[in-house]
């Protein structure tokens, strides 16, 4: 049968599922209905039960309650129960530590694209009507440090994905190579600065899909320094049957050109840009206007890792300036996404809830409570909060709960100037990344460790308190010695930061963006996203200070600004200046605005022109229009 909207899940009220929602999670509610009635008779019984639950307050509230009480068998119909918003029941139990993650990732293999990619949209071959690639001859047609590399991925449905052995095989939307089954996250792309890359994204999603998720794609590479026609602008979504408002024609595929240059390409004139602007951990994901939350929730995301001469991806690199951080197969991305399942163990998403759907199960690389077997040596993990709404505070612990340390080397995909040693937690909001190095050589073979989330959260609006021991979401088992000596290291100096020029900052234009609630939706400066209208136009090469403001206290906003990494200049909370935590003192592209706070960010706009966005990366806020378009224009 076709999938149903919220399959197998009813519109439920508090109490109906024998649980009560409270801050910090679910608890059983004693003495409520034993089981949900299935028949008409049962339905009547259910109504009677709910009416009984309401009887007392109603009697006292009703103006004619005395009269009602006097008339012994009251013939008036039972009052309708007071309507309340929909409440989703908790996900059914899962079986922990059975699903195994692969011991190493398999990077996506390059292909030779046929037909070859071109400057113009190849609409004759089925490409959607995108704008021409910027600087194509210069950055794609001219020899650079490395030859051009092509990749090909299809956004596709996998009808039999297993999140956990307790749940049935079921639909996800992920990415696939050729005719293989799609996975979530999709295949990891490993690439280098100086290597021009074209990724051909096919849209092979079922166009007759029924239920949450819309079968169009606009793939954003977060946070590549990419030309706007390859940035996955929300209005650039396409399918064979549909063209987004900023695309000329529909199509079956779209070529994204990633020049893999560092920001500052034009001013440095070294054929690479400013190496201090290099990113390491990026991720690609759908950004379709109106439907980003359900589409990402269905699984359309994957990692894109970048290397250069410094962070070379080779721990045995003979180049003396190479960092030699733990490298593949000991370089491992991990995504964390909150998901909700119905009583039958199927993924649910409430399309009309103004608050979205908060998951109570954490999918780690698409698996719930998986195991990762590791060798007794150093690993680099690239942690990503893949959304839609939950924030994490992750701790590494022994099975007895004792917290273990690790080294924090990068935030939002950017290596820090120096590693933060002896760390014991990673706090990431949606779309934030944290690169860490864990040294498993400290543990005897057979040791089991957990990665646990200690941050409680019961609303999509903001997380609650940190509480030990938390929920284990991933188990590591140290099960072997490495076949070779571990020559990787974490040097005391990683990637230097571009210097900040205080005079330049003082002279930079300041834009103030207030993130607020308006008319039951989420607004920026009182306005909602319109893909056709730029709210800021910035000259190419410009530098600005953006002041991000949250004037309320009941919610947080992880604000993502596309295109270039920014620097946090200052933070205030409740009107008082607060220190910027060490892991946020480097470059960032997600700025987590807590309640009643202001963050000032220094940003540059270099090398490309076109349309980009800033938005809240809490996906329900994004879809409920907390996004704006800004453009870069070349004044020449």
């Amino acid at each position, binding site marked *: 049968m076709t999938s149903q909207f919220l399959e197998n899940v009813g519109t439920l009220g508090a109490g109906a599922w024998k649980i009560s929602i409270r801050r910090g999670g679910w608890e059983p509610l004693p003495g409520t209905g034993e089981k949900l009635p299935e028949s008409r008779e049962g339905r009547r019984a259910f109504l009677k039960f709910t009416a009984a639950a309401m009887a007392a307050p109603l009697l006292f509230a009703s103006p004619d309650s005395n009269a009602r009480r006097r008339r012994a068998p009251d013939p008036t119909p039972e009052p309708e129960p007071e309507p309340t918003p929909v409440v989703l029941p908790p996900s059914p139990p899962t079986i922990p530590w059975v699903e195994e993650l692969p011991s190493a990732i398999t990077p996506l293999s390059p292909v030779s694209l046929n037909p070859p990619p071109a400057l113009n949209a190849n609409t004759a071959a089925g490409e959607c009507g995108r704008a021409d690639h910027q600087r194509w001859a210069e950055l794609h047609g001219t020899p650079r440090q490395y030859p051009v590399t092509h990749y090909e991925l299809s956004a596709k449905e996998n009808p039999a994905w297993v999140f956990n052995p307790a749940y049935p095989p079921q639909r996800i939307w992920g990415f696939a190579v050729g005719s293989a089954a799609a996975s979530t996250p999709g295949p990891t792309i490993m690439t280098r600065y100086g290597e021009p890359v074209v990724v051909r994204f096919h849209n092979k999603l079922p166009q007759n899909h029924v239920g949450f998720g819309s079968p169009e794609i606009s793939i954003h590479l977060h946070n590549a320094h990419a030309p706007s026609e390859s940035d996955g602008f929300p209005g650039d979504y396409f399918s064979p049957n549909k063209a987004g*408002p900023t695309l000329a024609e*529909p199509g079956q595929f779209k070529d994204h050109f990633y020049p893999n240059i560092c920001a500052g390409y034009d001013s440095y004139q070294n054929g690479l840009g400013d190496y201090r602007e290099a990113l390491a951990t990026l991720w690609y994901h759908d950004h379709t206007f109106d439907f980003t939350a359900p589409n990402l929730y269905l699984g359309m995301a994957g990692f894109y890792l970048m290397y250069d001469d410094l962070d070379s991806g080779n721990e045995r690199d003979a180049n003396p300036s190479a960092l030699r951080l733990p490298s593949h197969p000991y370089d491992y991305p991990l995504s964390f996404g909150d998901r909700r399942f119905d009583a039958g163990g199927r993924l649910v998403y409430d399309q009309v809830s103004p608050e979205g759907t908060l998951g109570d199960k954490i999918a780690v690389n698409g698996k719930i409570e998986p195991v990762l077997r590791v060798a007794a040596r150093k690993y680099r993990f690239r942690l990503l909060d893949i959304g839609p709404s939950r924030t994490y505070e992750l701790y590494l612990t022994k099975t007895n709960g004792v917290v273990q340390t690790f080294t924090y080397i990068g935030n939002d995909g950017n290596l820090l100037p120096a590693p933060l040693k002896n760390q014991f937690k990673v706090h990431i909001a949606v779309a934030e990344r944290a690169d860490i190095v864990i040294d498993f050589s400290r543990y005897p073979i057979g040791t089991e460790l957990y990665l646990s989330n200690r941050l409680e959260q019961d609303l999509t609006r903001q997380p609650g308190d940190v509480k030990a021991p938390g929920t284990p979401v991933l188990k590591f088992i140290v099960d072997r010695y490495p076949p070779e000596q571990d020559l990787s290291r974490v040097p005391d100096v990683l990637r230097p930061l571009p210097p900040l020029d205080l005079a330049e900052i003082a002279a930079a234009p300041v834009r103030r963006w207030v993130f607020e609630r308006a008319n039951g939706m989420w607004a920026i400066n009182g306005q909602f996203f319109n893909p056709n209208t730029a709210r800021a136009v910035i000259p190419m090469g410009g530098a600005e200070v953006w002041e991000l403001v949250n004037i309320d206290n009941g919610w947080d906003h992880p604000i993502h600004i596309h295109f270039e990494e920014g620097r946090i200049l200052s933070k205030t909370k409740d009107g008082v200046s607060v220190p910027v935590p060490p892991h946020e003192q480097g470059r960032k592209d997600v700025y987590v605005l807590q309640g009643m706070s202001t963050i000032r960010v220094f940003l540059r706009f270099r090398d490309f022109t076109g349309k980009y966005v800033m938005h809240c990366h809490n996906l329900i806020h994004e879809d409920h229009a907390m996004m704006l378009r800004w453009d870069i224009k070349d004044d020449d």
Partner: protein
Amino acid sequence: MNTRRNLLAGMGAVALGGLLWNRLPVELEHAVAEEIDTGSPSSYFPNVWLYTHEGEKVRFYDDLVRGKIVAINMMYVMCTGACPTMTANLRKVQQMLGERVGQDVFMYSITLQPEIDRPQHLKEYVEQQRILPGWKFLTGSPADIRRLRYGLGFYDPVPEVDNNLATHTGMLRVGNDRNQRWTMAPALADPERIITTINHVDGAMVHTAYMSGDAAVHLG
């Protein structure tokens, strides 16, 4: 199949704290009773009885939503806040959609003050606002309207905000019941942008950007 889901959708939700039992016009009490007694169809939305501004008695899901592309907002006649501007803006949307309204796309406005906004008041409002045919204004019993408001996601999780008429929703619920695809647009957004979202859920529209008249491209 899906008995439980149907049951629950028809039932609405259950509150443990009761409020005043509103006295309703006789016909609406009957409507409530019928709603309870009639098996609900397979729908996520409450299939409540409503009255159109033309006095027609309709069921929300069966008659207004089933198999249709819809755009739904909430308003009330006496509103001096966002409603007049929203209605005027949506009237532009209606004009720009032209003959698609009432044929391919269905526009509905549901009153937030069903006790006051009876069909004749809505009719007067429609005439006063010079609303074109094909866009229905709807009222019903207060409990049903409340149920519908929650069912459509027109609420705030904070009760104080939710119960404050002055901060009522400015959302336009946009969806296509045929493929059970639901999203929203701000009712005060540019009409072209609202139409882009309507075109996104309308399987017949290839180009989602607003194009007037003959420029619009239809599939099949």
